[in-house]
């Protein structure tokens, strides 16, 4: 004990000794203090001093050189999602920074903690239209939780401390720190790093108000048909166990939003499935049957609610959220439980009665049987000659046993994968939910693997989305990271085609997309691969992919004009869900 104390004090002393370092070095020292081990980035003129400093930190900071800054930020998102840590990105000024925009918007809407460092031209050149100068702060303001431009190196330690604190606390989000080149080069007297734990104008979470917990518990205890709907807040709050105790004691059926997926094991008896436009039949239909709707860490996105004036009008809503601006935003809450669900859920669990709802759960089961007969059976065990996306996921489930991290892109394959993939563990579903960013999956899978090195990471991508960021195969090649890639190729931009079929009289307007020979493309990057289109080859092909020591690309040719059902058509209420 004494030794420990002595060590501690000696560390404190050493860090309080002032030394002269550059702004770039101060940044890297700050990252080390924040526990950063992995950075995704791409160098360029205005960030060169930081990269010069990074040369001396190569042994402590693993910098992943991507092929495009969009790849860097999506990788950082994937990393943050699987690891639970802040994803860190380096990009240069101008085009380097603007290439981050899509990822920032994605991270903002999906509450992903990121710290993005962008280089900027010398402070004296700001506003002169200098080479590679862009107004990064103003471009990124609406899509960041916080951003700040550093023009003086002495600000770097405190600003980076603030950036990490803001990115990961409360409702997480992306932060951009724009550092002018002079500040990166500037030498200053550095007296050590102090993490940030308080900003006076910022309240990441409130003190939980007991009276609202009591009101919520009273409402829940009086419910005859309570229904829990949960989102990513459960995962971000690291409240998976608290959530489970809550629903198990209360006996509530629980359905998830796309980002809440994997917070509760798929095969949990109270997990009744997915909400929303392509969610399961029961959860959508019975949203309009429940009497108390308990929303946890979710934000009533329009893809979840369908038409708001036909959404759960009969129900009293209890809304647990850490972000007060979400409460009453789309759906009026009878009882707002504002707070971190890690804290609010146990308080609520303590006050609710232990109950079961066998009849109510049976309503969900009956809906499920109906859905199996009309949709799921044909999707998972088709009699058609062509392969379905669903059977690929089923085979994958059987081979990974639900232990893999599944990263999806955007479109039909995403809906199918999220509907049918099995998950035993939290932080296993990585997808672009709110923004719907095609091209997300490949780079996100790379980051997801860096964030969970001991886990199998399978990226499931459409033929369209893959071609948006396929340059990141170069990142896989260079780093040797193991990512399993399944391209579900239906030779169409399938989701748009489905809408054109259903709502635009089959006027297939520019959805017919041609693809290169994906296996050959992978081969060009020294990545093994195979292509299958026959059912008899599917299982062995997936098995070979999983067993292969290294990254692997498997292209599966699936039915060209298959549709994803059920579906809540746009402009309809959740109860108007269509099974075909």
């Amino acid at each position, binding site marked *: 004990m004494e030794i420990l104390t002595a060590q501690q004090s000696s560390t404190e002393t050493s860090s309080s000794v002032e030394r002269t370092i550059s702004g770039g070095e101060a940044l890297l020292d700050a990252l080390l203090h924040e526990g950063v081990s992995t950075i995704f980035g791409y160098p360029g003129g205005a960030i060169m001093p930081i990269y010069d400093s990074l040369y001396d930190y190569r042994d402590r900071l693993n910098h992943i050189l991507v092929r495009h800054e969009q790849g860097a930020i999506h990788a950082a998102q994937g990393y943050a999602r699987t690891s639970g840590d802040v994803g860190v990105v380096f990009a240069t000024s101008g085009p380097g920074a603007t290439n981050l925009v899509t990822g920032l918007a994605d991270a903002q809407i999906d509450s992903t903690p990121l710290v993005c460092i962008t280089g900027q031209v010398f402070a004296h050149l700001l506003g002169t239209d200098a080479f590679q100068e862009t107004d990064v*702060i*103003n471009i990124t*303001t*609406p899509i960041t*939780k*916080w*951003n*700040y*431009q550093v023009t003086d190196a002495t600000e770097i330690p405190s600003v980076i401390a603030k950036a990490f604190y*803001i990115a990961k606390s409360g409702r997480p989000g992306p932060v951009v720190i724009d550092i002018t080149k002079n500040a990166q080069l500037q030498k200053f007297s550095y007296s050590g790093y102090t993490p940030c*734990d*308080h*900003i*006076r*104008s*910022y*309240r990441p979470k*409130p*003190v939980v*108000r007991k009276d*609202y917990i009591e009101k919520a518990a009273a409402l829940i205890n009086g419910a005859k048909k309570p229904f829990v709907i949960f989102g990513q807040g459960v995962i971000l709050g690291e409240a998976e166990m608290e959530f489970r105790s809550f629903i198990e004691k209360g006996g509530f059926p629980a359905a998830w939003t796309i980002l809440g997926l994997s917070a509760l094991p798929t095969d949990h008896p109270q997990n009744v499935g997915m909400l929303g436009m392509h969610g399961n039949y029961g959860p959508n239909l019975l949203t309009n049957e429940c009497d108390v709707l308990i929303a946890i860490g979710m934000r009533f996105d329009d893809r979840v609610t369908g038409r708001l004036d036909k959404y759960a009008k009969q129900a009293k809503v209890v809304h647990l959220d850490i*972000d*007060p*601006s979400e*409460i*009453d*935003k789309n759906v*009026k809450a*009878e009882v*707002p439980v*504002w707070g971190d669900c890690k804290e609010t859920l146990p308080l609520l669990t303590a006050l609710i009665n232990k109950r079961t709802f066998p009849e109510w759960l049976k309503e969900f089961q009956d809906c499920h049987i109906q859905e199996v007969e009309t949709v799921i059976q044909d999707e998972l065990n088709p009699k058609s000659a062509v392969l379905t996306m669903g059977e690929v996921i089923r085979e994958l489930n059987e081979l990974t046993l639900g232990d893999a991290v599944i990263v999806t892109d955007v479109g039909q394959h995403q809906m199918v994968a999220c509907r049918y993939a099995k998950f035993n563990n939290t932080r296993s579903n990585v997808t672009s939910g709110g923004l719907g960013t095609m091209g997300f999956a490949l780079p996100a899978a790379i980051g997801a693997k860096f964030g969970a090195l001991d886990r199998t990471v399978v990226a499931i991508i459409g033929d369209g989305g893959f071609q948006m960021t396929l340059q990141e195969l170069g990142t896989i090649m260079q780093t040797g990271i193991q990512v399993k890639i399944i391209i579900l190729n239906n030779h169409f931009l399938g989701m748009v085609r489905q809408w054109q079929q259903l709502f635009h009289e089959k006027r297939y307007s520019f959805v017919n997309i041609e693809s290169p020979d994906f296996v050959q493309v992978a081969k060009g990057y020294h990545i093994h691969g195979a292509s299958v289109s026959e059912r008899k080859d599917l299982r062995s092909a997936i098995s070979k992919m999983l067993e292969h020591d290294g990254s692997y690309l498997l292209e599966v040719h699936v039915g060209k004009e298959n549709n994803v059902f059920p579906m809540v058509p746009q402009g309809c209420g959740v109860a108007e869900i269509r099974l075909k």
Partner: protein
Amino acid sequence: MSKQEFTITVYTENQVGLLNRIAIIFSRRKINIESLNTSPSEVPSIHRFSILIHETEEVVRKLARQIEKQVDVLKAYYNTNEEIVWQELALYKVPTEIITEKVKVERLLREHGARAIVIRKDYTIFETTGHREETDKLIKVLEPYGLIEFVRSARVAIIKDSAGFHSKLREFERKEPAEEVIENEFLDKQDEVFTM
């Protein structure tokens, strides 16, 4: 709910770029800002925005929450006209010869509480403060007499039942603030908010 005037009062850190961060909360939703004023507040180092918009209470409440969500914002209040005392300042430039020649004009100016702040051979500048209708009225009055230039400031407002921000700020600076600081209107005035 019908639209009416609301004054949003925002206490913030004095940070470059924050004006844009707040302004785009309105422009993103295609909501026009009728007037916007930034100034120091009663507390040194804390800035105060006064934003006037014409909207329904529900929209204003959501806007205020979005504003308060910004990291550098300490607090956002919104109030109806009944809950505040407000003023706008207006300047009028009029040809001096008309003022001197026509006694009536001088009387009109006095009636409207205007005072001359610059008198030159060629023009005179009058200043008046008041509500928009009052300053508007004077434009109408002066127009026939060759009003050369007119400008009006943004609304500045004091909230009638506010005790100021000094004690609040001390609370904000504490790591574990009292409930009062982390208040939220739907937690503290639930009865009022939830009667729909």
